[in-house]
């Protein structure tokens, strides 16, 4: 009859009760230690990673702010460049018939030397 239970007690590892009990306790202890170790490593990573990430974010933010406030805007840059370019200024004087004084000419040429 296949409905009758098969006696598998020969395969029962708990025959040797004290040995099995030691095994159970060893597995529980190993599991607990492994879990504690794993959590400790994860915890340490989080502890170290969080300030590092925060510092990196602050640095990035400060850098962005510094760049944004110190760099001239595109329009300012174009005006300044056009204003100080000797060729541009001379061409403008010629086109408008303006007669700059010597100091002005020297300033423009001097600025040209200074920037180049």
């Amino acid at each position, binding site marked *: 009859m*296949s*409905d*009758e*239970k*098969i*006696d*598998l*007690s*020969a*395969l*029962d*590892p*708990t*025959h*040797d*009760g004290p*040995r099995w009990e030691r*095994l*159970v*306790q*060893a*597995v*529980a*202890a*190993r*599991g*607990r230690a*492994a*879990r*504690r170790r*794993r959590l400790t490593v994860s915890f340490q990573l989080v502890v170290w990673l969080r300030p590092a990430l925060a510092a990196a974010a602050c640095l990035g933010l400060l850098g962005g702010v510094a760049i944004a406030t110190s760099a001239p805007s595109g329009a300012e840059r174009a005006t300044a460049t056009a204003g100080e370019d000797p060729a541009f200024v001379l061409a403008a004087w010629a086109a408008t018939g303006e007669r700059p004084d010597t100091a002005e000419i020297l300033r423009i040429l001097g600025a040209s030397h200074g920037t180049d």
Partner: protein
Amino acid sequence: MLGTDATATLVARAQRGEAAAFEALARAYLRAAYSVALGFVGRPADAEDVAQDAFVQALEHLDSCREPARFAAWLLQIVRNRARNWLASRKLRDVPAADAPNDAPGDGAPPDAGALRGELLAALGGLGAVPREVVLLHDLEGWTHAEIAAVLGISEVMSRQHLFVARRALRRAIDGQSPSGGDDE
């Protein structure tokens, strides 16, 4: 087998780091882990190693157990994976299971337990994975069909069917006839 509520409570306590919960889980489920491992590796000493390692792995990664009430199913899947890996490495080492030097029965076992155990293990080896697990969990662990069905993800009817097939095959094998039931893995 513990009820699902009791199991879920134990898992939650173990997740909080309570030492007693780890031990209670091991006491409740290590034998089932051993049975499943034995069905795969076919050698008691190796089954013990596989079950222990799988159990430690499960306890270590307890947070990955998304459904604490289904801890047993989750654990036994880890055991199966471990056992498969172990079998693959044994294949590489090419060590036949029958050559095991350390499979003598324990001190508490009857004198002729070694021979009987060998017969049973050989017969179990002829079964498919599912019938083998069903018969071990039912006839060795004492689990009900409902519990087995929940853990293996099959219906209770199928669990009964697998048990019937496995018992018939085991009886034939033990009686010296060729086993059947290994084709429904």
